């Protein structure tokens, strides 16, 4: 019995650094490229200027950079597409909500306003990079609105 306990402890001890290292690396990777567009080789981040709330407009700033040559602090570059589409989708309801307004503040920095969460629950913020009807790349940011909203 003691032998089994010892072996199990040894195995767990051996595993922990590996798991810890993997988790840390994952975190670092996530920080460097929070929203990844693998096909076009770009990354993006989203900063909420007005936090997501139930039944109120939220506002966010999207920043895009090259995965190879950029970082979350810059230099930023425009999304590698002709059109950028950002929308909300509520998987449990099977629909989204009203269109989000996008304004280019400067190269690679885009303001998103009138972001309307029509009800509490789990949402996906979908970001599509498009050329006409062709979707070049896309990513989804999951959001959870379950608490009582702020005034």
């Amino acid at each position, binding site marked *: 019995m003691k032998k089994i306990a010892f072996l199990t402890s040894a195995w767990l001890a051996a595993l922990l650094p590996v798991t810890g290292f993997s988790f840390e690396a994952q975190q670092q990777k996530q920080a460097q490229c929070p929203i990844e567009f693998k096909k076009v080789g770009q990354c993006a981040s989203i900063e909420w200027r007005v936090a997501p709330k*139930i*039944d*109120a*407009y939220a506002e966010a700033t999207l920043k895009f950079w090259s995965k190879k040559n950029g970082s979350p602090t810059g230099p930023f570059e425009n999304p590698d597409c002709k*059109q950028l*589409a950002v*929308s909300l*989708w509520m*998987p*449990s*309801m*099977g*629909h*989204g*909500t*009203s*269109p989000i*307004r996008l304004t280019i503040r400067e190269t690679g920095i885009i303001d998103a306003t*009138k972001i*309307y969460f*029509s*009800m*509490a*629950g*789990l949402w996906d913020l*979908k970001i*599509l990079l*498009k050329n006409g*009807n062709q*979707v070049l790349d896309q990513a989804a940011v999951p959001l959870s*609105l*379950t*608490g*009582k*909203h*702020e*005034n």
Partner: protein
Amino acid sequence: MSRFFGPIFGLLLSFVVLTHSNLAQAAACCGGTSAAPGLLTGDDTHQLTFSASSSSVIGDMPEQGWAVYRSSSTSEVTQSFRFEGAMLVSESWQIGLAVPLIRKEFTSLRGSDSATSLGDLSVTLAHETWPEFGYSAWIPRGFTFLSVNAPIAASIYETTRPGAVDAIGSGFWRVSAGALFLKSWNSWDVSLFGETHYSFTRNFQGYFGAERLWVSPGWGMSAVLGAGWSFASAPVRLGARFQPILNQGRNTWYDSGTHTPSASQLVWNSGLDLSWLASPEWSAVAAYTDQTWLGPAKNTTLSRTFAFNLQRRWPR
């Protein structure tokens, strides 16, 4: 006189209030509705009904977890003005048409958006399948119906306005079939309504800049159990009703094949009604419907609705 009219009041007014279930549409987003049509249930050849209602979303019931109530600093209000007509086309068959005018307003600390538009039209064919030929202490009078909803108004899949205030319609062709039973004893009346509906698959081009989206809402059902008591001394009725509405999860997919099933919806309307039969031709109802009194609810918004209904009938 009041004793004589008591059962008639019950029969007439109990169904007038059922039509309010249409006004208590659950969600601004969802068009999660029942399909109770305004049937001729009295001894009349025609009837016209005007209904006005104001519905406020007060909270949300997510797919999992507890209800989340909204603060008073924001409001999402839907006002509905509904014109409904029904007429006999034979001794037992009748047809009906309903045309709603809907205004939606969303107000937050950062401003207000609103839109007004015609809502979805609905036409109904109904049959008095179980008429009352003689007195029975327990056999009810019964109607069956088939109703079609035409998606005239923009839906949540077509909204272009902030706050989705222009998402006024359900977005889908819907066929519903059901039955209504009415029974009254002196001052008391009971009504039971049940329907099942099917909403047809439809596609929406370029939904929010994406490729073509297909949506299949599929099946749903609702029921109303109502009861009322008419005063002996005045042509006034007090009523209560309970209405569960269940809709299956929507299947959504893109042309590329990306498929996302959604969860089913369940909500309970509970209501109180005050009805007044001014004459055999005219009646009015004030109704309150609340979606927080009964549960369980799932994957829906929760609303409170005040409604007023005026009805003109033409007796045979």
